[in-house]
């Protein structure tokens, strides 16, 4: 099939940027969205035009590198799917596709569709881990965890940090990412000792970069891992406790 792409091109963080239109010819429906871009890029290189910069790594929906805004939706039209897992069978001959980078103060554009997501690293650094004392590794089953709790913690832990929640949010808020990263640890016995300190520090760091949640649920609907906003409520609850407990952060 043959498609028309309108792609955001921006040379540097300070460049104003603009849309450029390209033709994507001979696209097979079995290609992934990124393979389609690869093919367009080969054509651009052949034509002496600088190829479109986009981020990718695993191409199997687990690393979180590849997010872009496709026709006004984070990761494109298919729910629960990262851009690299989107396939061209979603499109038909003659379609026009508009591709933009994530837009948020916390995610400045580096070039074209590539944004700097290191604000997420700052959030993780401020508490998204468990402090482990040195010594022999403990026995795996020493700490019993109820199956249901383990499952819910795992649901939160499926977050790949792609930033679609921020990109999709009308407020540019990072609540779903932060809530998932707080909750995956706060629900488990290993994470509990640092629970209140963790939530206070991670929320404070989040608020330095991102907007404020108004519960519109666009994040949940755009998340390639379909992480629930229930974790946001959980984070809010833990944050309140952290502020009102005497030994909290």
């Amino acid at each position, binding site marked *: 099939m043959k498609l028309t792409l309108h792609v955001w091109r921006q040379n540097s963080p300070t460049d104003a940027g603009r849309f450029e239109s390209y033709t994507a010819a001979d696209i097979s429906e079995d290609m992934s969205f990124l393979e389609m871009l690869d093919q367009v890029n080969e054509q651009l290189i052949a034509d002496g035009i600088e190829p479109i910069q986009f981020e990718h790594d695993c191409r199997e929906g687990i690393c979180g590198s590849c997010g872009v805004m496709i026709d*006004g939706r984070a990761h494109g039209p298919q729910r629960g799917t990262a851009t690299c897992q989107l396939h061209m069978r979603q499109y038909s001959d003659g379609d026009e596709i508009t591709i933009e980078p994530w837009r948020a103060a916390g995610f*400045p554009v580096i070039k074209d569709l590539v944004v700097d997501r*290191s604000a997420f690293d700052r959030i993780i650094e401020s508490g998204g881990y468990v402090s482990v004392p040195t010594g022999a590794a403990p026995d795996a089953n020493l700490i019993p965890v109820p199956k249901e709790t383990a499952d819910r913690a795992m649901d939160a832990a499926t977050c790949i940090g792609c930033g679609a929640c921020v990109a999709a949010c009308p407020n540019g808020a990072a609540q779903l990412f932060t809530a998932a990263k707080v909750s995956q640890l706060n629900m488990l016995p290993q994470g509990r000792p640092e629970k209140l300190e963790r939530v206070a520090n991670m929320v404070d760091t989040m608020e330095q970069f991102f907007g404020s949640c108004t*519960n519109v649920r666009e994040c949940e609907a755009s998340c390639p891992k379909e992480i629930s906003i*229930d974790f946001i409520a*959980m984070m809010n609850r833990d*944050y309140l406790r952290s502020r009102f407990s005497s030994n909290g952060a």
Partner: protein
Amino acid sequence: MSTTQQPPRADSRTPAEQQATAKRPAAVRYSTWAFEFYRSALGKKYVMAITGVIGMAYIFGHMIGNLKIFISPESIDAYGEWLRESLLYPILPHQVALWGIRLVLIAALVLHVHAAYALTVINRRARPVKYQTSRDYIAADFAARTMRWTGIIVLLFIGYHLADFTWGWFNPGFERGSVYRNAVASLSNPVVALFYITANLALGVHLYHGAWSLFQSLGVSRPRFNRWRRVFATAFAVVTIGGFISVPLAVLLGIVE
């Protein structure tokens, strides 16, 4: 547990990132917990939700009281008199309970609007460059996306409403305490009646989202029961606003005169 605060290494930050952080310095710590809590955006959301609940409790009672207009002029006038003079009397002197309620409502409104304003500023700043093409929203509904506008309509309405019925500025032939007479005098003007109806519909849209949203903001979430939050918010908005607009409608239709 001093392990959580790792000082960010200067060289680990890209120039773009330093720019993003530089715009918004980390909150300065105040010694008092209430201040510090309100300084955070999450704290402001708690305040919005709590003041929203106060407002909801008030408007629900207000709506029930208004329905006395359908019983008789004497019934609603006596009710107004009781609210002003006899609420909690003789435990409290005349009018003390009334002023207590007024002060709580004023404080709640000021905090609610201030938090709404402050968070709106933060949210504008969080996306300095807008998407250049139109968004295709999946979950964000009309009510959620218009909270600021419906809020402003409600705020303007509250001002007009007080000037109309409490201070009597806009009320033709205003008589303090003659609740029934004043209501009919004002709402007999179709323009005023339609304004009341429109403003109440805006409040209904505000509450359709707000009465759901507050559970999330307050961290009230139990996966098994969460679908009832939507049912509650819809029912609350429909019942409260239905009750309110029944009065101007009845005056417009000549049922109350």
